[in-house]
């Protein structure tokens, strides 16, 4: 039984209103990403929550009305568009001295690099997967993964540091990678299928 195939992704689950846990998970996943994005684009602190809520509302409404079409691009790309347009909308509605005219607004919107968003998005996915997977595994197993995959240390070196066999280090690392990918796939169901 392949958990990837049988588990419904978060994006699908938030369509059912009965699945209250799905909504909480969804918000928990995307809120920090959105918050950071919005904040770093100059929206003042007291308005950040409102803008983030608006983005979430647009997203969930579109998903519930089946307006988001997974065929036409990834969720990540689509979320970027939604987020960017809400920030632009905010700027337009709250013209401060620097957002005084359309030209500046356009310039700012054009400066938005999809690549920057992609990096932030993936960073958040990684962090989120970490939050879910790390508590479920042993300290040693996690460290074996982190030291080899993130800190790029060699197998034998890590094995010596942690007091594990080299084979065990590889097993640990592979297991965690598989778990992380599952966790992320369960959120978006995108691009992370098993080979």
């Amino acid at each position, binding site marked *: 039984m392949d958990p990837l195939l049988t588990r419904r992704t978060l994006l699908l689950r938030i369509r*059912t*209103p*009965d699945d209250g846990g799905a909504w909480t998970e969804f918000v928990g996943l995307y809120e*920090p*990403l959105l*918050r*950071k*994005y919005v*904040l*770093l*684009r*100059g929206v*003042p*602190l*007291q308005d*950040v*929550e409102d803008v983030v*809520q608006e983005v979430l*509302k647009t997203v969930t409404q579109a998903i*519930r009305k089946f307006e988001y079409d997974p065929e036409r691009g990834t969720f990540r790309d689509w979320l970027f568009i939604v987020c960017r347009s809400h920030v632009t909308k905010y700027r337009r509605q709250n013209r*401060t*001295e*620097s957002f005084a005219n359309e030209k500046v607004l356009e310039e*700012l919107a054009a*400066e938005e690099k999809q690549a*920057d968003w*992609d*990096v*932030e998005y*993936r*960073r*958040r*996915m*990684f*962090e989120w997967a970490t939050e879910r997977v790390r508590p479920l*595994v042993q300290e040693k*197993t996690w460290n074996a993964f982190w030291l080899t*995959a*993130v800190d790029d240390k060699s197998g034998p070196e890590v094995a010596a540091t942690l007091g594990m*066999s*080299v*084979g*065990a280090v*590889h*097993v640990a*690392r*592979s*297991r965690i*990678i*598989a778990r*992380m*990918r599952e966790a992320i796939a369960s959120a978006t169901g995108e*691009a*992370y299928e*098993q*080979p």
Partner: protein
Amino acid sequence: MNTPHLDDALLQRVLRDDTLHLPEVEAHLEQCAECRARLEHLSGADEFRAEFEASVESEEQTARAILQPTSDPGCIGTLGKYAVRQWIATGGTSTVWLAVAPGSDSIVALKVLQPLLAIQKDHRARFVREAQAAMRLKDPHILPLLEVEANHSPPFLVMPFVDGGTLQDKLQAGPLPAEEVVRIGRAVAQALVAAHGAGIIHRDIKPSNILLSSSGEVLLADFGIARAFDGATLLTQTGSFLGTPQYMSPEQAAGERELGARTDLFSLGAVLYQCCTGTAPFSGMSFQELARSVQESAPVPIKQVQPTTPLWLENLISHLLAKQPADRPASAADVLRAFEQQADLGRLDAGQMLGGAAKWRMMTARWLRRAVVLMTLAMIVLLWTERTGRTSFVNAALCGLSGNAYYITGKWQTFGLLDEAIQAAAPNDVIEVRANDPATGRGGIKLRPGKPLTLRAAAGFRPVLPLQAAGFPALGVLESNFIMEGFVFNHVYRGPRPGRLLHVKGASLKLVNCRFVRQPRNPETLANTLSALIAGTDSPRIELVRCQFYAPGSPVIALISEQPEGRTEVVLKDSHVWGGAVFCDVKPPAHLAVTATGCEFSSSHVLHFKQAFPAKQLTADFQSNLIQSVGAAVVAPWPLEKVRPLMEWKGAGNEWYLPDGFLLTQDTRQPDLTSWSHETVSDRLAMPFDAQAFPTQSLSEEGLPIRRPKK
């Protein structure tokens, strides 16, 4: 190769099952590169790495992107004219590097603004302005700013490098001894005296901004920078606030733009609190929670956590942590004096430590002193003797003084418009109104998700909401649970299609002691199609208690559900409906449960399903009601055989007057309830449904006539 290669099935099992421990597999993997590669492939390591290269790399690697390359072997890059040796730290707004100044060999720290912030012209301009102002500051306890490289992109600050670390590093190991706390407090207070004297407010005092050199100096760094970025300084690398203790003042948490110098004093208090106890005074799992905590709750008293703290120091810290700036020490100079003399600054009032609801309980004595000027002696006596009425009395006085009708129970502020009160309210607050003709504001009643509220008329008032416009969208759009009590909705309509009054979406609604009146301006023009008074879209529960509805032609409740398994519960108690149907549907929820107790319905229909019948189940429980229904009580647009299994009817003690029968389906009419319950219907009675007879006397009169058929 000692052992045969491992097959895929085995490798998959190893991957899936965390508990599987096979030493022989591990031993083989150690030797066999091919099987290791296979395992990697099955776990998807290549894709994983490709996807997360950016996230998996450390903060340092990301930050390095802005450095220019260098041929100098001791350096990792250059920034402007500085040779960068080493990465030190990255925060929400900036990265700090260790570098060497050209020409001299002095070691400096470069604080570089995050590129994303740097491209925003007004932020950048503010950053440069604030930094240039901070350059003027000269004090032994202020980290000097050597240069502001405004023309570089991104701009950065140059400061002398202080070897030793920050207070944050030191606090990792736990609380500090009292002498150390005093030493640090005194130094920061002195720094603030210099800064405030020069008109500069720090705004972001926290342990990571207090440097402790290895030679024992205490230096406050990063002046004024926080102003340029509002909340960005609160971010961690990935945008989460979770669990990060903060030192912001209540006014900062409230989003005040104009901050006074005393905001720094609060932050200093928070830092010192942590130095004494080891933990920050306020925390929260989200920004909202944290902000609330800072504004309203009192931190655990220091003596409970660290009893060895000297009393004067504890009092001083408490004084610094007063919620209202006016309650804190008047200036940094006073605080400095307190540290030098090792004495506190006077008697402390516990009420100053609290805010919000908690403050009420503590503050009334203090409030009284102020209010003496405003109230007569008789009123004061009343206040002391009338314990239960105390709070409402205070609210009344405040409303009277300010001319505002709305307030949130337990809080100080009053509001002129309902919009404002809703905006200022926290989830589950109770907003009361002390007026008979309140103003709602342009937006009507708008409740966003996540803000359940109660709106209630204050004792002795019967607010009437005047609704004149023709065909507007709902007066109230409610997306959070809402309770409303004691209001009159008086809707006199002109045009052909007056809209709904309250629309609740995805949340529950409870109305208590409310009256809804809807009538045409010209009685001749009773409209044909009228919207319901209350609409619920995917609302789990609508409850009406002691409500009255006088709205000929208008259904009371319309129910809509978009969900295939939608569930709604409607509960009516002691209410009276005179006019249109009690319910109608637009798209009924699949499961609908209706309970009515002690009500009187004098209506066209009770349940009028126009387009569809509840797809899964309709459960009705009617007890002790009086039901006079001019048309059939239940109208269902499906054939009887489809309706029958879906409708469950329970009733006892009702009086039924059904000139047109009980149930009307697509193909038949059922004159009575015998198929569903043992209840009987009285003999046919002519009951004129006379719109002209709608009572037009004053709405504030209680006890409008209820038309009972004569026996």
